[in-house]
């Protein structure tokens, strides 16, 4: 009898959170889906059914084509850049050097800062002005004699979005480093020693033993970084405001919904973003929880 009462009580303890998540996550996703299938355009809700019209309109919209292209370029550069820098720094820090804690904290601190602050500062670092008005990193490169690095940054035609990945890498590569460092620390020392006894050199040990063991970390990092980049929004707004060459789905969603009152289309963008994140996250959740259960 007591067991039963306790089960009820345990369910009761989590019920408020379950209800909150059920409404605010799943209920709202359902609601957004309904809006995405409606005609709603204007201040007052209009749930007239239009089927997939909003999605069709979106895929025929040149602006959305720019968004998809920009998201792809940004994601590739941001994820690969963060992984390479993160792995490189983690391997360097794993060499039992003095001051490891100091460097580790230094590389990680950008994580504590908001994308807005990062964006506002990088907006001035990536100032594209030339000649006597030159400033920011261009001015630094100029005075160091590194003229070949001088760039138009995010105002570069066609590839501007690639430069927005730079502040994003600045912010997230330290985090990637921490993930890899955790992974490196989890590799038993015996494995390395055995390889050394067998006559393997450092490079061989890393290539044949350590890097393959870090593959699950790379996967986690790719998924976490990938889902951040699909949602990127505030960083771009803070660096460059809202301008078409640097547009991404999250900015389009915000403008079309809250400035343009085209709720049907805004909801459609939200649902497409959700689907693309879900494709990454659901297999990841299942995989992680299953391996956790096996341990």
């Amino acid at each position, binding site marked *: 009898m007591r067991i039963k009462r306790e089960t009820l009580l345990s369910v009761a303890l989590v019920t408020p959170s379950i209800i909150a998540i059920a409404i605010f996550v799943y209920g709202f996703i359902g609601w957004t889906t309904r809006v995405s299938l409606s005609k709603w355009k204007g201040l007052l809700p209009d749930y007239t059914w239009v089927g997939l019209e909003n999605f069709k309109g979106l895929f025929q919209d040149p602006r959305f084509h720019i968004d998809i292209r920009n998201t792809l370029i940004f994601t590739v550069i941001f994820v690969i850049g963060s992984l390479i820098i993160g792995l490189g720094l983690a391997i*360097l820090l794993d060499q039992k050097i003095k001051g490891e804690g100091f460097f580790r904290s230094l590389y990680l601190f950008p994580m504590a800062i908001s994308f807005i602050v990062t964006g*506002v500062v990088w907006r001035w670092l990536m100032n594209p002005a030339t000649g006597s008005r030159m400033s*920011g990193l261009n001015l630094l490169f100029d005075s160091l004699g590194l003229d070949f690095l001088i760039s138009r940054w995010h105002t570069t035609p066609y590839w501007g979005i690639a430069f927005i990945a730079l502040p994003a890498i600045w912010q997230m590569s330290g985090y990637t480093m921490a993930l890899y460092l955790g992974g490196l620390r989890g590799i038993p020392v015996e494995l390395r020693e055995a390889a050394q006894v067998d006559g393997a050199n450092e490079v061989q040990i890393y290539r044949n033993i350590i890097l393959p063991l870090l593959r699950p970390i790379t996967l986690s990092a790719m998924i976490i970084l990938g889902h951040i980049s699909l949602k990127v929004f505030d960083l771009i707004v803070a660096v460059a405001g809202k301008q078409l060459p640097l547009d991404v789905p999250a900015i389009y969603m915000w403008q079309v919904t809250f400035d343009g009152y085209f709720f049907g289309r805004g909801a459609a963008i939200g649902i497409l973003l959700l689907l693309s994140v879900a494709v990454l996250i659901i297999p990841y959740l299942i995989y992680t929880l299953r391996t956790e259960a096996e341990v």
Partner: protein
Amino acid sequence: MKARSRSNKWLIYIPLILAAFFYLIPMYVMLVTGFKGFEEVSLKTMWDLPKGIRFDNFVAAYKALAPYLWNSFNMVFPAAIISSILGSLNGYVLAKWKFKGSEIIFPAILFGMFIPYQSILIPLVEFMRDINLYGGLPGLVLAHVIYGIPITTLTFRNYYATIPKELIEASRIDGCGILSSYWHILLPISAPAFVVVIIWQFTSAWNDFLFAVVLTSPSNWPVTVALNNLAGSQIIAWNVQMAGSFMAALPTLLVYIFLGRYFLRGLMAGALKG
């Protein structure tokens, strides 16, 4: 062989120090600009050290940002504390009192951590209007509390999972029920997990922009929205923006500097690793 590798070890510091410069550049620019006097400020001399320590920029930035900084403080503490308490209760039940269906509920809660908020934004705004919480800070707190539940639940569940089952069983033999064993056994040893979770929620609520910009009206803006607005305006000089950015970053930076170890643990929980 060994001697050679040791003598070359200092080479490692070259890339490490170069990387350190990369991470410090924005901080350097924020600080040297912030401490310059108004007459000293110029984009041409952006990289030069200030001639003395002046607070002109910070005073101007504080004048522009003060009310919004206070909005952020008023929003962040309740958001962090309430979602931590909920997370602790959920984590306790999901780690120690598994019931039928709890193994489905846990990932279903976790999924909420990853969704792009664009997919719930329209209903969220409508809902807040309906319950009269639109425009003010309580509505923003509510959003941070609810969308914070997944990460706080995850962290506490992983933490409580490391605590031996025998401890709970022993307390039950002593006549403790589910609530009293939480209160007497788990809560007193939960401090480390609370620190991790509160820091994490503090940081993410402080740094949030999306919820703030759609849910609050101008007088209730937190500092991120106000700073972005400041940066977009033509009236506020870039040097004041730099000082303002530093002020907006300072609270989470201080948390990071003094409690960084815990912050790191919070990060790792975000990667689903306990």
